[in-house]
């Protein structure tokens, strides 16, 4: 009986799927919050890759990097949400297609 152990490949495939979902979310959605969430999904897909390789190669560097990414993501969350709130206060919408003052 084959033991159901997740191999490196499984992690990498999952990570790729998550990342693609994130990319599609960013490209197709108009709501700034959803785009923002999609970016978080992409970041975490990358984190998953780091952890998987860390485990596989027995190297702690990947886990250190993940913490780094999480810290940056937290800072980004603070700034990004602040921008979205400011946007909503000014334009009364979070639809990114409505925000095109700088268009050529």
């Amino acid at each position, binding site marked *: 009986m084959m033991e159901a152990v997740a191999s490196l490949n499984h992690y990498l495939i999952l990570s790729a799927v998550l990342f693609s979902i994130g990319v599609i979310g*960013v*490209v197709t959605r108009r709501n700034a919050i959803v785009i923002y969430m999609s970016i978080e999904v992409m970041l975490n897909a990358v984190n998953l890759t780091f952890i998987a390789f860390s485990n596989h190669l027995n190297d702690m560097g990947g886990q250190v990097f993940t913490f780094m990414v999480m810290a940056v993501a937290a800072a980004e969350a603070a700034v990004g949400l602040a921008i979205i709130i400011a946007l909503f206060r000014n334009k009364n919408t979070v639809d990114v297609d409505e*925000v095109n003052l700088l268009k050529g």
Partner: protein
Amino acid sequence: MGNYLWVIVLLPLLGATVNGILGPVVKKNTVTAFALGTTGLSFILAVVAFFQLVGLPADERAITNTVYSWIEVGDMNVNVSFLLDPLSGLWLLVVTGVGFLIHVYSVGYMDHDHSYWRFFTYLNLFMFSMLMLVMGDNYLLMFIGWEGVGLCSYLLIGYDYHRDAAAVAGKKAFVMNRIGDFGFILGIFLIFVTFGSINYHDVFGSAHNVLTEGGVIVTAIALLLFVGAVGKSAQIPLYTWLPDAMEGPTPVSALIHAATMVTAGVYMVCRSAVLFNMAPTAMMVVAVIGCATAVFAATIGLFQKDIKRVLAYSTVSQLGYMFMAAGIGAYVAAAFHVMTHAFFKACLFLGSGSVIHGLSGEQNMDKMGDLKKHMPRTYWTFLISTLAISGIFPFAGFFSKDEILYSTYNSGSLVLWGIASVAAGVTAFYMFRAVFMTFHGESRVEPEAMKHLHESPNVMTMPLIILAGLATVGGFLGIPMIEGANVLHNFLGPLFEAGRHEAAHDTAHHSAALELGLMGLSLGIAIIGISLAYYFYIKNTALRDSLYGTFKGIHKVIFNKYYVDEIYDAIFTNPIVSVSREFLHKVIDVVIIDGLVNGVGSFFTTLSEMAKRMQPGMVRHYALTMLVVSIMMVSYFLWGAK
């Protein structure tokens, strides 16, 4: 001594500046005081300076007053410096003296004008420019004055700028003068290149070392200078502006277009006598053009109806005499005629102005007649001046014109002499025709004008009387024949001696009998002219009218000034206008210049239109771009780069 010469020149400029700035706000009397005060003072100083000059020994008669060094560039060294010698002294007196009288006259003539101050500003500015022209001691200062008088002439001809005819005439005068000025300045350039200086003293002093007699360069210089004179002094072929200049107010016609500015060309030729003497070919051209102008303009004057136009053509004709005299080397005679002409022609113009003033602006002689008893002062002064211009003894014109004719005869140019004598007869005829049509015969004055008919006020008639007086006695300055009595000859003569060989002594051995004979002849010709005028315009007007009928064609051609204006229009003006309109405007301007300028703009606009599509303002769009580019880059590094 003489260090106040600059004041003479600058005073009228001061008057012009003050009146030009304060004129609109101060009272009329203040304007008058400034305009007359500055020119009057200038005249007084001129007289003082002149007598100082006369007091000097004959060979030291040149006072220079250097004010400051103006241009110093490389070899070029130009001072603002004024020169008073017999030649400029004579002109100085004529310009300030006649100019002042005409200022006085203008006070009366322009009395009802709405921009009185503007007139006097221009008039003073003109005086300043004319004095610069005459008094400068180098060609550049002369050129400044030359351009200045041209500008003032333009401003004053177009003084009534709301009338189309005046504006057009002003423009015509300006453009015609530009053609001449172009030649003049080329002449100055050539002088500078040849001599390395444009100062009279340097140029005339070294002329015999630098140039060869009759050489190409000296001939070119003389001819180029003469082109300038042709423009300014209204000679063939550039004379057509002068009759049109009569659109200006009459005092302007008297001052600028008769007495002073138009003689600037004669002054310049006399001033450059040294150069002209070295260029016999150029002298010939001057004499022939002068003579041709004298007779051509005189014939046009025969049938003109506008009193001022008659006088204008007579001015052109008299200027022709002056050039003819200068061209045969009789510079003194030319200068003499300039002086006497200034007196009688200014008087004639002011007289015609008085008539026009009295008739409420009527200039057509067909609507005058029998004004003698209404305007006695104007009549008598006009008559005296007419006698003077016709060359009747003992009035001024007799002496000067006779001297010109005599010198011409003596120089051996019998053809020129013959033509000029005929022109003198024609002059007498048309001038007396003007007198008879204006002052004698039956009155043809319009009833409306008749009501306001009046003799002009004293402020206008006094200058007339003074000028008529000068026109009577002015000739005695140059009594011919008796050695020593010809004051003018002794005074001016030495100036023109340089560079003359055989002609220099023509005064020394002239035969009294010959001169008396020629005098009698020219007097006879003048009297014939006058008698004919009397016969046709007083005695037998029916014959005149039937002759008009017989020679209708000739009359029409002459009355229309030989269609010269129309010919010029056809040859020069119209082609230039159509080339400008059809080619320069529609092709060069609209297509090439505008196309280039607009093309640069639209090129970048198009480029930007394309570039702006890259920034539609859609965040998802940017994200997609980022994604695609990232995939491309990753793919490249994974599989592409070896």
